[in-house]
């Protein structure tokens, strides 16, 4: 019961975060939301493991956490320098935020 | 003596695929070792070996025998089974021999069209494509088909993207998108059949499908498999990727793919339709006649008519391929012995014919740098042998007697008459006339327009030219000696009609 409650609570949180990710409005809202969903998924999988009686699949949660971290770094780097490889220095000019490209400075 | 060498013939089925498969990473290592010139030699040798293996396999299944090989030593439904019958072996021979011929032919052309430092990777992709196509033809496992389908598809996207013009990129992209949709549809279809039968082995599926023959899931499966594969073999109106892909790919690649790739997908459809779904419903009552026949006729006419209006020779041939695929599918859709024989023999004949034609065009592009009809004026003077080879291929496409194309048309029309289907026989003949128009437009340009000023007689390099002439000669040869093509096709047709249980 305890696990079920926890799972439902996690799902609700994820739904809220999903809403934020969909609505934006800034890139950082979305990134944060995605990151949050990632974290909640880690938890959810852990909880589900107990719920199913096979708690030995915590590896997956671990992997999630790892992927989430790396993914986030990639995203941030993308936003900061607009390029994944090479350039180490941040661009001297303020880098356009991807969002502002398309929707004309809604932030 | 080593146990492998002692029984090497027994392992031919697997070696057929593994040899090119293993050669691919080895070829990519050549890039790493910076030995570029070797890549072509290795690729050609490997291709030659596969041709020998394929020929030996065809010889050993001749007469209706079936070779089964259990990969990993696991018996059929548990593991993956290789199953070679006459039709499969014929396909193997087509793929392997065309690959060899085009490789020998394409050396100069590839040198010209692709920077030399990329050659090892190019030939790697080539061998992967060959391995994929061969794998599809020998496997007896439905999911394994998907895996090898993807190997061949991915590598052919790469090969097409290797074209010089930027359009080759969009052509490859479009093919990738449509090809992936097709492959995924195929996967859904296989999933549905698997769901209803609980097995992945094609022979096993054929047994178990009887129990669930009338379910909607099976019907949906048949639809998805057919549509998915039709996307891969470019049946009208799902042919949208084909003209661009064949037009903008490097000449050698066009020749190879046009001659082989679509055939293998058609072969897979044949096996699924006749061996698996053929058990579920009587063959004649399948979705063929209602569904495939009109589509194939539409393909024949749409492709031929579109070809009439092309000014680029490669694109013209590509549209003609759409039409020719229509012929093959039409033969299949009769689902009688003559029709199937006609369809299968046309796979073979069309491989030779289109191979010859695309190779001839490749030779022209090599010398003149263009496949626009306008630039090919008076080619009969400037490149007499190439132009003549094109002429031979062209009349084979029309279906003129003494050429391979005639044999196919003969069987297709016989099948229509056998079926009592008069209108189709007439339409088939009519479509040949459209072929006359589009081929003759080219012939006129070659022979009856004066060459531009200052044009000299300059044939392609000897090896290239020799291969073009060889393929052109093959189209004539297979129009005269049909023991191999018709013999194998007829046998394959009978095997398919008996549900693969001969």
């Amino acid at each position, binding site marked *: 019961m305890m696990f079920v409650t926890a799972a439902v609570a996690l799902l609700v949180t994820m739904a809220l975060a999903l809403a934020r990710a969909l609505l934006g409005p800034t890139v950082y809202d979305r990134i944060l939301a995605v990151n949050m969903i990632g974290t909640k998924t880690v938890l959810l999988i852990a909880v589900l493991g107990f719920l199913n009686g096979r708690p030995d699949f915590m590896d997956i949660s671990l992997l999630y956490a790892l992927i989430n971290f790396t993914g986030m770094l990639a995203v941030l780097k993308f936003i900061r320098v607009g390029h994944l490889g090479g350039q180490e220095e941040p661009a001297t000019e303020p880098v356009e935020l991807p969002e502002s490209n398309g929707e004309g400075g809604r932030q | 003596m080593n146990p492998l060498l002692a029984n090497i013939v027994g392992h031919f089925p697997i070696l057929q695929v593994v040899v090119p498969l293993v050669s691919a990473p080895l070829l990519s290592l050549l890039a790493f070792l910076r030995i570029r010139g070797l890549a072509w030699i290795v690729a050609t040798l490997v291709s030659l070996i596969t041709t020998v293996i394929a020929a030996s396999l065809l010889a050993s299944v001749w007469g209706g025998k079936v070779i089964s090989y259990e990969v990993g030593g696991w018996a059929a439904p548990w593991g993956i089974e290789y199953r070679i019958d006459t039709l499969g072996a014929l396909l193997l021979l087509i793929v392997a021999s065309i690959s060899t011929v085009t490789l020998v032919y394409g050396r100069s052309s590839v040198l010209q069209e692709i920077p030399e430092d990329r050659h090892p990777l190019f030939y790697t992709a080539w061998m992967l494509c060959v391995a994929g196509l061969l794998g599809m033809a020998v496997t007896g496992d439905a999911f394994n088909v998907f895996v090898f389908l993807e190997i061949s598809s991915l590598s052919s996207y790469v090969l097409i993207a290797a074209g010089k013009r930027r359009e080759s990129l969009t052509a490859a992209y479009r093919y990738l998108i449509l090809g992936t949709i097709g492959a995924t549809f195929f996967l859904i279809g296989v999933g549905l059949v698997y769901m209803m039968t609980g097995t992945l082995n094609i022979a096993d599926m054929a047994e178990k499908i009887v129990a669930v023959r009338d379910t909607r899931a099976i019907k949906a499966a048949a639809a998805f498999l057919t549509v998915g594969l039709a996307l891969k073999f470019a049946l009208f109106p799902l042919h949208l990727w084909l003209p661009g892909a064949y037009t903008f790919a490097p000449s050698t690649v066009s020749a190879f793919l046009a001659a082989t790739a679509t055939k293998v997908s058609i072969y897979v459809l044949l096996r699924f339709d006749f061996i698996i779904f053929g058990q579920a419903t009587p063959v004649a009552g399948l979705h063929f006649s209602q569904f495939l026949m009109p589509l194939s006729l539409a393909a024949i006419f749409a492709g031929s008519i579109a070809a009439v209006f092309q000014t680029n020779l490669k694109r013209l041939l590509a549209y003609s391929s759409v039409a020719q695929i229509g012929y093959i599918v039409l033969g299949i859709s009769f689902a009688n012995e003559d029709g199937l024989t006609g369809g299968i023999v046309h796979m073979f004949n069309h491989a030779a014919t289109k191979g010859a034609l695309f190779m001839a065009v490749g030779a022209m592009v090599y010398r003149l740098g263009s496949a626009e009809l306008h630039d090919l004026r008076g080619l009969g003077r400037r490149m007499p042998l190439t132009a003549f080879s094109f002429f031979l291929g062209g009349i084979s496409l029309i279906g003129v*007697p*003494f050429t391979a194309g005639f044999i196919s048309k003969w069987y297709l029309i016989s099948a229509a008459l056998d079926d009592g289907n008069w209108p189709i026989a*007439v339409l088939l*003949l009519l479509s040949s*006339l459209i072929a006359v128009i589009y081929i003759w437009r080219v012939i006129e340009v070659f022979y009856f327009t004066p060459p531009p000023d200052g044009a000299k007689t300059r044939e392609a390099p000897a090896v290239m030219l020799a291969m073009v002439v060889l393929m052109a000669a093959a189209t004539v040869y297979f129009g005269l000696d*049909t023991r191999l093509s018709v*013999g194998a096709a007829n046998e394959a047709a009978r095997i398919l009609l008996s549900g693969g249980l001969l």
Partner: protein
Amino acid sequence: MTGIFLTDPITLSVAIPALGALLIALGSRSPNLRETMTLLTATALAVNVYALLPDVLAGGRPATAWFSILPGIEMAFRIEPLGMLFAAVASLLWIVNSVYSIGYMRGNREHKQTRFYVCFALAIAATMGIAFAGNLLTLFFFYEALTLVTYPLVTHKGNDEARKAGRVYLGILIGTSIGFQLLAILWVYASTGSGTFSDGGLIANSFTGAPVGLLLILFIYGIGKAAVMPVHRWLPAAMVAPTPVSALLHAVAVVKAGVFSVIKVAVYVFGLDLLAREASADWLFYAAAFTVIAASIVALRQDNLKRRLAYSTISQLSYVVLAVSIYNPIALAGAAIHIAAHAFGKITLFFAAGSIYTAGHKTEISQLDGIGKRMPITMIAFAIGSFSMIGLPLTAGFVSKWYMLSGAYAAQHYLAIAVIVVSTLLNAAYFLPVIHAAFFRKESAESAAHPHGEAPLPILLALVTTASLTVALFLYPDPAIALAKMLAGI
């Protein structure tokens, strides 16, 4: 599968001109060598063909088979009287035509002569294949081959007009043969399982009623080379070709291959009995009669000499079809003889037209006033050819018309007699004025300003030969009649 034996005379008949083509191509550097090759090949072929004649006259039916194209369908050959007759005529006329070609091509300084001679030789090879074909598929193969190899001849000039004509030529011939003839052949194969020509008719026992008529339609219009209206248009279109080609196309190989195929199909596929029995086959007579009359009327209105000859050819070809369509053995013999008779006559006429063109560069009939004085030999030959077309005695045309009329009379087909008589009058109406103008009118001022003599010697030689042959066939028609009677079984 039977092997191909090059020693076999039938195979040789096809192989000699084919090899000859190769030799001619190899000799492209030297005109003299090339033309020697042509003549040698032509002679060798004629010798080979005529060596077969006694055997066939004695009732022999030599046969050979090359190999199987498809299971159960062989490339097979069998010489029967009609094929023998056709081959004899074609191989003989090839020699003459070669001589003539040499004169014509040199006289007019034509380009691409090698291609011309090569295609010519190949066309003869295909003609031999047609003549000796033992089954429908073999016949069809060589029929198509003949179309393809004569295409470069038609478009020889290479200008837009020639290309356009080539398109019509190819379009109609390939179109009809693939569209109708192949369908008919497949139908025959599908219903009898065989396509072998057999005495008494291959399908005599398996077809009755309407399908016979339908199949006949497919065959008659599928054999576009027979030029039964409305599939005759290729013939006048092909007039742009050089005259030796026209002679070959319109007198010997192509059109004769057409009517030859018609007779062969009628006799050996349908069988005359079947055709005579079935009412659904009666339409052929009307189609042929219409073509005979209509083409003659059109011919009357042509001023271009070659076009007039072309329409005359259409009309004459339909004589053969008409004779067949009487479905009577005697008329059939007439049809067979007419193949030879018309060949000799018409080739003479074309040679004459070419001679006029070479010597005087005249193409229109209205320019010919008084030309008989400048070119007496040519015009006398022309007159002989014309008489043969009309069917006057002392020329070969009389023999064939005689047999046709007797056949029609025997069959009490009075309408046929009427058609033949009317068309004979029409023939006279469009040929005699030409002769009259040539010999009895005064030369126009313009012509007088450009005096010219006779054509070069090879042309005259050929002309005289064919004219004499036309007369000879009247005086000594026995072998032809013997073959024709054998064919008709009388």
